[in-house]
């Protein structure tokens, strides 16, 4: 037997990938070669000295929990609570007292308590709003609201970047302010894309109905649009022209249907593929989605070669790191890229 094979067999034996035939072979070697048997025994004994798998103590967990307490408090709705029937009367009574105090509290305190959530490059974040509505922030986005009045007097918030909302149905209207636009909803799911470096603000509706108000300086010049499901409104970012053309034929506002694509057998829209961390492309040129990469990763994409800019792509790419995305794209149609600080330079 040659000794290379012996080592291979040992590796498989100790690290648990040995096959029955190999095991037989190893046993044969050990029983016929006393020196190898000795080596095997010593190694076996040594290999067994593994570190014990200890678990962290409650104190360590408590310290960790306290340190990040704020993060654990915004746990979304699907926490299960079991209430013992016996205590329900007491609970009801206690709830009444709490409610009374609460109502009083709302009446007598109108303190502003601004809450701000934001995301960095390549970060996505789901937050549960006080009314149990859900907001998913795409990279480089933010949501701000007044916790003192939200879900009490109003449901108003401000946003930047791109946010997907799934709003709980309530009597109080849910208002999203983004630049000069207010989106008014009752209970729906919709996506707002308003990255500063884009010409348009896009709102896509998936369920229910929303009303958009484009502020034009005063009530007269305000413009209202009602949006139905699976439609998208793009508003050109230029408040002055909006004010002038409000009421007239307006070419700054486009309504289009959402395109559905399938991903993993499920139909999803290109506008919300980011929720699944996917970049969904359907016959799009590189130049047309380069902006999406900039929004996501915070790096400017400079395509030097016009031929590369005109490359057409279809399919879905997981949005992991920018390098992975670029590698995937360049493996389909070849180009070279160089990342320099905040720029990505693309050449043929």
């Amino acid at each position: 037997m040659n000794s290379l094979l012996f080592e291979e067999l040992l590796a498989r034996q100790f690290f648990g990938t040995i096959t029955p035939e190999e095991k037989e072979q190893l046993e044969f070697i050990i029983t016929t070669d006393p020196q190898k048997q000795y080596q095997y025994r010593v190694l076996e004994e040594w290999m067994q000295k593994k570190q014990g798998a200890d678990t962290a103590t409650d104190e360590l967990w408590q310290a960790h929990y306290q340190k990040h307490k704020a993060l654990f408090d915004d746990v979304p709705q699907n926490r299960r609570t079991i209430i013992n029937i016996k205590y329900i009367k007491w609970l009801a009574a206690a709830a009444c007292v709490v409610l009374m105090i609460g109502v009083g509290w709302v009446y007598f305190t109108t303190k502003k308590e601004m809450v701000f959530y934001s995301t960095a490059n390549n970060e996505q974040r789901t937050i549960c709003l006080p009314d149990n509505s859900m907001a998913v922030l795409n990279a480089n986005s933010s949501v701000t609201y007044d916790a003192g009045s939200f879900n009490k007097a109003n449901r108003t918030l401000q946003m930047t970047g791109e946010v997907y909302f799934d709003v709980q149905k309530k009597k109080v209207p849910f208002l999203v302010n983004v630049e000069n636009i207010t989106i008014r909803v009752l209970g729906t799911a919709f996506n707002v894309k308003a990255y500063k470096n884009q010409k348009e603000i896009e709102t896509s509706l998936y369920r229910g109905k929303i009303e958009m108000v484009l502020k034009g300086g005063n009530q007269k010049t305000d413009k209202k649009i009602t949006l139905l499901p699976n439609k998208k409104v793009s508003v050109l970012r230029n408040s002055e022209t909006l004010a002038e053309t409000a009421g007239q034929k307006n070419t700054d506002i486009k309504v289009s249907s959402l395109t559905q694509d399938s991903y993993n057998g499920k139909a999803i829209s290109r506008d919300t593929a980011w929720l699944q961390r996917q970049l969904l492309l359907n016959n799009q040129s590189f130049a047309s989605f380069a902006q999406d990469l900039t929004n996501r990763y915070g790096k400017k994409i400079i395509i030097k070669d016009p031929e590369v800019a005109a490359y057409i792509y279809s399919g879905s790419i997981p949005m992991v790191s920018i390098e992975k995305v670029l590698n995937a794209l360049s493996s389909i149609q070849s180009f070279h890229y160089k990342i320099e600080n905040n720029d990505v330079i693309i050449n043929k």
Partner: protein
Amino acid sequence: MPKDLSTHGSDILKEKIFNGDLPAYELLFKQNYPVLKKYAAKLIRNPQAAEEIASDVLISIWKKRHELPQITFFRAYLYRSVRNACLNFLRAEKRPLDEGLSDDIADLSTPETLLLNSELNLRIQKAVLGLPPKCKACFSLVKEEGLSYKEAAQILGISPKTVDAQLIIALRKIIDVLRTA
């Protein structure tokens, strides 16, 4: 191929954490904090910073829990995150990476272990410490941390075949030590 129990267990845990289940996260923390801390301590040789790195990696799982379905090798992901954090730490301190196994160095020096370990064991440990970095990294993950080839490969960004080859090199060097005994 059937999944082994530990990976399957972490799939359930992953799903629960994805749904914002705090007790599931507590379990994840308790099961993984000590090993991750130990692994970080080996790489950076700074117990305090290692605690922080392990804690930060785990809390980032909670922060990014809605992305968990995208992570296929959960345990490997945790180790890789710790490893990357350690690399950043070392870069900031302008220190080179030493592929761990520093626990063994401590073992070598205490009198009890000197008594417990035979002369041979010491030889083996010295041989392990003298392994080339890549080899040591594989050996540390598979032997010390008890991870699979596939997981070690994921963590180090190499193929499982390379892990296999590196481990065979490691064993060959160790057997060389035994042969001269």
